[in-house]
């Protein structure tokens, strides 16, 4: 009888132990899941704070360098500045007394490249030596990054003929 009672008690205790262990395991799992979520939320909060800090730094920089940024924006060639640029090149040629001809204007796009598009302008002038060289210097001094692919000067019957292939970065 005593043996039977002891067996029953042992079985009951074992069952209780198994239930307790299961509860503990579930509790640990729950804590782990919650920890993971907390970690994720903390990371997100850090990231948001970092983004906000960066945004704040950018705003401060924009405010302190507003004039420089405006000046820089004015130097960047975008679509609506192309016609005035071409006209100013022609105007410089006229003022120097040169026959000036814009031979072609083309946009070179490379969708695969991260490089900006290129505006390629081919121009020709004819006139005496000094204005021809002054025109070349004026082109070199344009307020953009000047890339000259080709420049040739040749003596002709009356003065000098010059051909320039000019490339400029365009940001549209």
């Amino acid at each position, binding site marked *: 009888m005593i043996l039977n009672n002891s067996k029953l008690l042992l079985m009951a205790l074992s069952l209780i132990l198994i239930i307790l262990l299961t509860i503990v395991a579930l509790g640990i799992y729950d804590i782990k899941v919650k920890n993971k979520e907390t970690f994720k939320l903390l990371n997100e909060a850090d990231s948001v704070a970092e983004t906000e800090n960066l*945004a704040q730094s950018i705003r401060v920089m924009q405010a302190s360098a507003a004039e420089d940024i405006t000046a820089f*924006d004015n130097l960047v060639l975008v679509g609506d500045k192309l016609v005035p640029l071409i006209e100013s090149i022609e105007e410089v040629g006229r003022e120097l007394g040169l026959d000036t001809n814009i031979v072609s204007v083309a946009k070179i796009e490379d969708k695969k490249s991260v490089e900006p598009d290129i505006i390629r302008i081919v121009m020709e002038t004819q006139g005496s030596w000094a204005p021809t060289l002054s025109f070349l210097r004026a082109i070199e001094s344009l307020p953009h*990054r000047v890339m000259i692919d080709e420049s040739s000067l040749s003596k002709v019957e009356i003065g000098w003929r010059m051909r320039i292939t000019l490339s400029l970065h365009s940001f549209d």
Partner: protein
Amino acid sequence: MGDPGSGDNGAELQAWLLETNRRLTALSPKLDVDRPSDFVDRILDRRVTGVGITGFSWVKVKDKITLSVNGVASDRQTLVTFENRINSSGYFSNVTLPISDLAKDRDINFQIKFSPL
């Protein structure tokens, strides 16, 4: 790019910063170095009596620049002196005068090719 203060949220501001950096990189003054007029000046500074220049050429292909000067030299010695002056200027390398240009002894049409240093 427009008004720098227009983008108010973080993503727009970061996009503005990235684009500005891209523009600054592409338009860096350090890269703005194409000056064919300097090449012309340097050649004119080395001209010798008896050499008449009829042409200058600057060609850039994939960042490699090839220069040439054309003209007429009164005689062989004058032409060789002019070539030597270009060669020893310290501004140019690979100065090449085709030997065939020395066939004539008077009023020699020539083309000297070289690269900037």
